[in-house]
């Protein structure tokens, strides 16, 4: 049985197992007192949310279809990407390592997913220059994904032999233990470039400030609004909010990511139009349009 057939069988087995587990649980629960539940499939109070999501997803799917057909989708160059290349170039000149910090959240955070895509591209560039790439990780789930992304990057550059698995390091689940250990790496291994791209919280300034004190060129990016000010003051360049996602789409040129980016751009255009129209109507004393956006 080849891998594809096996996957198909395993998916069906998992769904069946899930179904039987639910049936068995329901049978056991039937002996215990019934609890009242809401049997509705649709919450009609949220019809406006359904319409909004349908428009956004429709746009994304349409753009993905266009990208898959090979149609050119324009995305403007993001200045932060030049900064990443510059940082890697500087590390090469100095013969030092690059430290890539993918944030502290798990794989269920879209920022970590975007960060892994950028990591793959950074690894590809670094593999060509033959300098070490260190990736300290907080969440165990992120480790295999990061390994895969870096391995893929080295493989694309034809330098799989240079891939060092031990440089993808699980540090600790604990936020500040992780911050302390990464600060230690910055001081002891003295990377020439620190790339902090992903989801960051209270440790953002600790890391960025330590990195700045070592003289490393730093490029950061996060969609966590409250951490952006720290990166802006302590790093050489910062990808602000959605620029992080746009960077991953721009670098990978993956149709699904490009389609999502273009679809979200269309959604933004619709939002801008809605705000303009709504503001004009509100100023004129017309209220019905604003009520369309009320969610219960």
């Amino acid at each position, binding site marked *: 049985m080849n*891998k594809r057939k096996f996957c198909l069988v*395993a998916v069906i087995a*998992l769904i069946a*197992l899930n179904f*039987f*587990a*639910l049936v*068995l*649980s329901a049978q*056991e*629960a039937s002996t*215990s007192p019934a609890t009242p539940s809401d049997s509705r499939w649709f919450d009609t109070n949220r019809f*406006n*949310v359904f319409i*909004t*999501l349908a428009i*956004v997803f429709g746009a994304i799917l349409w753009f993905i279809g266009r990208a898959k057909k090979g149609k050119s989708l324009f*995305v*403007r160059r993001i200045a932060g990407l030049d900064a990443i290349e510059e940082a890697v170039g500087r590390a090469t000149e100095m013969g030092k390592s690059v430290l890539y910090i993918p944030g502290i959240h798990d*794989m*269920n955070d*879209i920022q970590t*997913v975007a960060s892994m895509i950028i990591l793959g591209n950074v690894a590809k560039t670094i593999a060509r220059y033959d300098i070490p790439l260190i990736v300290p990780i907080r969440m165990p*789930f992120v480790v*295999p994904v990061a390994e895969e992304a870096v391995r893929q990057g080295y493989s694309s550059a034809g330098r799989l032999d240079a891939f060092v698995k031990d440089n993808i390091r699980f*540090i*600790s*689940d*604990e936020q*500040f*233990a*992780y911050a*302390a*250990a990464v600060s*230690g790496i910055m*001081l002891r291994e003295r990377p020439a470039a620190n790339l902090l791209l992903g989801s960051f919280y209270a440790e953002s300034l600790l890391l960025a400030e330590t990195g700045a004190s070592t003289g490393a060129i730093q490029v950061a990016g996060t969609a966590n*609004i*409250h951490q952006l*000010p*720290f990166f*802006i003051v302590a790093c050489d360049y910062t990808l602000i909010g959605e620029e992080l996602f*746009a960077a991953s789409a721009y670098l990978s040129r993956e149709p699904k990511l490009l389609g999502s*980016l*273009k679809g979200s*751009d269309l959604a*933004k255009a619709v*939002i*801008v139009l*809605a*705000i*303009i129209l*709504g*503001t004009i109507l*509100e*100023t004129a*004393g017309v209220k019905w*349009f*604003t009520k369309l*956006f009320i*969610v219960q």
Partner: protein
Amino acid sequence: MGIISFLYKDNPWYKFCEALFVGISAGYWLCTVFWSQLVAKLWDNVFATTAGQPRQYVYLVGGILGLMMLLRLVPKIGWFSRWPLAFVVGGTAGAYIVGYALSNGMKQVKSTILPLWVSGNLYATVGNIILVVGTFCGLVYFFFSKEHKGTYGRIAKLGIFFLMITFGASFGYTVMARMSLLIGRMDFLFGTWLGLIK
């Protein structure tokens, strides 16, 4: 004190505290996850239910996915570990999408649609204009399908000004909160613990 000594420079005391912190946290989380997930969720709900409590076999699915994650230790069938990852990423995206659409979309748009003229209230009028113009310019900055050139570029630049002012305010606020944390720790060390501050 060992961690704070890092402010001077990297030193053996800091290294010791760092290693201790990382090691203890690893052990702590292993125990926490074992008791709060494996025992409390899987074992207690499937195998060791109390009298009258129905067995919840659905937790077995989570257990199997967890086992699949461990299969990456066997290189030949390591690709199995991609499945639980796909499950987590896909499941979370699906579960959160409506919440995000509500909080980051609908409610934000609703809060931005404001009258640009509030009769007899100049403060509210100016506030509303700043909010609407700031949101508009900010959205223009994050539009990636068009180059930032000409009038469009100037609007995007105004958007980044609004963002920077917001970040500045946020920075000041957080720095004050961190100072308050530092004062609290110093008070504990020199007051409560050492008794040097009365």
